[in-house]
């Protein structure tokens, strides 16, 4: 049998394999994103840029608590104006490699999302990822956009009005009904969904210090601990919408990626695995996925995508 074809097309953009560097992991600059692209990623996502520069939270910001990671980095970024320059350089470096660039963005009002999207579009990324796991400052309860179908849809409408780039909406698992959110953003014009952002928040307390270890006290949980939640979210979303889904959460090995794809994912995000297995994880995932496909006689990802929904 010839080598299986791992490529996937998301909103018209071709990825040579389904493994996408998740936002907030390494994506701080052009050189490091180029390195990840050279390490074999199918696409890379830059860190999330917001309307203004943000310093982020003080340390500790990321911890390995045993079952996974917990982080409260606080979206440090130089603001979207500087972001455009960083992304332009990144795009320049990725072009010869044929690895698409996903620009991630956030804001604290729906209008803000539209404005950041308009600005960031100048950098010419291949895709936009809309990180809606941020508090909606206009919501009287301070709920994140990701927790309210109407607020989430409003964000997408603003973004779609501001750019012609395909918009991937990144959903949070911390909601009672993720299908409702998925349907709302699809209806508002989202071109794809990525899920999940970090779980929780969670808290890890140091029993010698008698206080939470993260300076921000609480943080989002990622890594192996969240995989079953992520797989279920992807499964639920894929049963509710027909736009493509990038499955993210706890994927460390090729078999985890197979699970995501069987749940319906078109592509697979890779975050914490960079900690557990190093930046070389992309090449290894590709080999593991190929090996699985060869052993099972699958020529393309579509041959087993979504099969967990049957029967």
């Amino acid at each position, binding site marked *: 049998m010839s080598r299986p074809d791992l490529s996937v097309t998301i909103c018209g953009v071709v990825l040579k394999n389904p493994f996408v560097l998740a936002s907030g992991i*390494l994506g701080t600059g052009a050189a490091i994103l180029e390195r990840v692209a050279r390490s074999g990623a199918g696409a890379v996502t830059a860190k999330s840029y917001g309307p203004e520069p943000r310093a982020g939270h003080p*340390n500790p910001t990321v911890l390995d*608590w045993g079952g996974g990671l917990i982080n409260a980095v606080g979206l440090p970024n130089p603001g979207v104006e500087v972001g455009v320059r960083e992304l332009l350089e990144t795009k320049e470096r990725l072009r010869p490699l044929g690895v698409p660039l996903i620009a991630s963005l956030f804001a604290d009002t729906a209008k803000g999302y539209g404005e950041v999207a308009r600005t960031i579009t100048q950098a010419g990324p291949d895709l936009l990822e809309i990180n809606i796991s941020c508090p909606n400052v206009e919501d009287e309860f301070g709920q994140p956009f990701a927790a309210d179908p109407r607020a989430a849809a409003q964000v997408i409408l603003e973004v779609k009005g501001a750019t012609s780039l395909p918009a991937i909406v990144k959903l949070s698992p911390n909601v009672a009904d993720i299908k409702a959110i998925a349907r709302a953003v699809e209806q508002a014009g989202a071109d794809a969904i990525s899920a999940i952002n970090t779980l929780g928040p969670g808290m890890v307390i140091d029993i*010698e210090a008698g206080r939470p270890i993260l300076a921000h006290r609480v943080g989002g949980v990622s890594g192996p601990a969240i995989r079953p939640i992520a797989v279920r979210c992807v499964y639920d979303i894929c049963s509710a919408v027909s736009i493509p889904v990038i499955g993210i959460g706890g994927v460390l090995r090729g078999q985890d990626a197979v699970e995501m794809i069987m749940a319906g994912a078109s592509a697979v995000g890779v975050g914490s695995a960079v900690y557990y297995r190093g930046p070389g994880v992309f090449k290894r995932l590709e080999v593991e996925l190929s090996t699985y496909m060869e052993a099972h006689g699958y020529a393309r990802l579509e041959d087993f995508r979504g099969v967990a929904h049957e029967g």
Partner: protein
Amino acid sequence: MRDRLPRVATVAQVIPETSKVTTFVLDAAIKAHPGQFLMAWLPGVNEKPFSIVRPGPLTITVANVGNFTDALHRLVPGERLWYRGPLGRGFRLSGRDILLVAGGYGAAPLHFLALAARDSGMAVRVALGARAQEDLLFPGRLAGLGCRVWTCTEDGSFGERGPVTDLLQSLADQHRPKSVYACGPQAMLQAVAGICDARGIPYQVSMERYMRCGMGLCGSCAVAGLRVCRDGPVFSRLPPGS
């Protein structure tokens, strides 16, 4: 399960080194390689990277340069300090005859290296530089380990006047060391790289960058596509464009 969370230790000794630099000896011991670092955490203050000066009793040496290091400097014996580590990739020791080049508190990781080099019977020379006499770190400790120490200061208040890289240049030509190990400010490391490259001497440098996670994930410390916290802090050549 909780192996990689901060561990607590008690400060056993606080030793003044220079006017701005203090050594903290903890009642803990770890396994580590010279050049590795730890993240020191003071609850409610911050968590920052420091080179391991000695793995047992675990020792760090800290220059008071800002908020966190100032809080560290207020620790007294009996108080507690948390740490995650060892982290990063340290020096690879090789060659019978080595030369260490330290600028400022760059002497910290090199102290651990000198310790290990002595234990494996190597001949160790050290070029130690600082702004002024009162900033020279570890001249006595390094000599005590059996190193041959040369010193220089930028203001000439002790030893040669000039940058430590001038010292390196003359020592390199004179003694032809098998390899050079350097730690200090970025500009110094660049000069070290130039001097060694010109002479074909292999070198390793320990670099510093602003760190958050310390575990190779967040990208804060990235330089030329390399993560100082995990691919370094020791590099066997200076990352291009760093």
